[in-house]
């Protein structure tokens, strides 16, 4: 057991400050365990959102020493023995209290996305998909909606362009629908105009923070940007579409 210094931001949207706590840490603990110990012993009113403690519910997103992370997946032994650990709420979303933020904006964006519209059923009434077609969209279904990618995305975090860009999480949702072999909805115009694919400058921070290791930029956002290029910026493909009257 060793004593560690935690510096936790306490407050509400109206204001707050960092408060320091000295707490005993046992081997094998993660940051969320230590926050629970502080809550139990030193600050009963400390607000933390958490649920599964296994990196699968996406609830305990916060910023630990400045990096967006899941508190339940951040092991204490990765910090130096004398290192102070600063814990803050996510920057991109409004603070509710202490480490809890209001992430409802993400759900509002999700509602704007045109839903899955499947092809008509074949004569036997059974849809069939081969594994190779399932694999690609399956990666996107791993998302646990922790919104760390939304938090770290500088377009939302620092450039205040929530009005024009839905962020990486919703781009991944769009990719899961747009690349689905049974889907017939055309979301490419909305990708460019409403969801702001051009605002992303692919600095890949979203991929770096994803706890599910989804290749958000390489497999989601860039392929979507390329589909926008197909439709709007490629004169040769435009000519082919005109000649063959394709979408």
């Amino acid at each position, binding site marked *: 057991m060793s004593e560690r210094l935690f510096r936790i*931001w306490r*407050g*509400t949207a*109206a204001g*707050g*400050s*960092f408060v320091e706590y000295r707490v005993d840490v046992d081997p094998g603990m993660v940051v969320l365990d230590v926050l629970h110990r502080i809550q139990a012993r030193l600050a009963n009113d400390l607000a933390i959102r958490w649920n599964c403690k296994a990196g699968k519910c996406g609830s305990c997103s916060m*910023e630990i*020493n*400045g*990096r*967006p992370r899941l508190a339940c997946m951040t092991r204490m032994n990765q910090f130096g023995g004398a*290192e102070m650990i*600063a814990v*803050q*709420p*996510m*920057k991109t979303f*409004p*603070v509710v209290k202490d480490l809890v*933020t209001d992430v409802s904006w993400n759900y509002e964006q999700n509602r704007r996305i045109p839903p899955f519209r499947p092809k008509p059923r074949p004569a036997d009434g059974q849809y069939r998909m*081969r594994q*190779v*077609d399932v694999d*690609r969209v399956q990666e996107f279904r791993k998302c646990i909606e922790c919104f760390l990618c939304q*938090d*770290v995305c*500088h*377009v939302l*975090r*620092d*450039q205040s*362009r929530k009005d024009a*860009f839905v962020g990486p999480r919703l781009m991944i949702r769009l990719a899961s629908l*747009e*690349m*689905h*072999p049974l*889907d017939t909805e055309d979301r490419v115009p909305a990708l460019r105009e409403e969801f*702001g694919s*051009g*605002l992303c*400058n*692919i*600095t*890949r*921070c979203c991929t*770096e*923070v994803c706890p599910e290791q989804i290749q958000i930029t*390489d497999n989601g956002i*860039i*392929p979507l*940007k*390329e*589909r*926008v*290029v*197909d439709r*709007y*910026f490629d004169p040769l493909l435009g000519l082919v579409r005109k000649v063959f009257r394709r979408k």
Partner: protein
Amino acid sequence: MAEAARAGGHIIGFAATTRTDRWWVGPLLTVLGLGGFVVYATWAAFQGSHYYYGPYLSPFYSPLLFIDPNAPGAAPLGQAWFGTWPSWWPSFLPASPAFLILVFPGAFRATCYYYRKAYYRSFFGTPPGCAVGPLPRRRYRGETGLLIVQNLHRYALYFAIAFIFILYDDAFRAFFRDGQFGVGVGSVVLLINPTLLAGYTFGCHSWRHLVGGRLDCFSCDRSSALRHGIWKGVSILNVGHMQWAWASLFWVALSDVYVRLLSMGVLRDLSTWG
């Protein structure tokens, strides 16, 4: 670097962060590596000389569209695609064949999805690091304003693919001196160069999209199954796109340095030609 705290205790301003790790190392290395390459490539292009040491041709000067045969270390006139240096060339610019071709590989790298990340972070500070304050700007427009030109990356790719074949042809010629087959250090250097470039070019995100990524169904017919196989191969290269990008960038500069030093008489090529 004016900093002010706001709800959540986050500080705002350029490079403002509560990160405690050395996040600035990556952008700094990029500035040094990419900046160093651009400075060297510009200098080498301005020289217009010492780019040939039979049978080695510097990749910065290939293909040779026109040649000024009077320049020191110039290739023989027979190597030019269109003959002697044109009279209409502005006199304030040196007669350098590199000026006529470097725009194509330059455009490919400048619009590359990997390099965009690298220079947006390290040169433009948008942002300099993850969860690090960006350079302040009035209204961020990403790649919808002037940078909309990035969408032409696939056209730069088409030229880049052509350059691979040209550089492999140069590598093939590098094994023949005065019609006699042989191997020199330069032959190997010039063979590795297009190989690294091919690894970089054929792992390109736009290429990955064009060969198969644009399909929604990989199993719907024979052609889509074939394209899925190609897409999988390209995806393997794409995973290491950054490593290919840096290795090929370094090697193309090294190839020029090597040929230049041979041509200037500073180095002696080890070869089977004696």
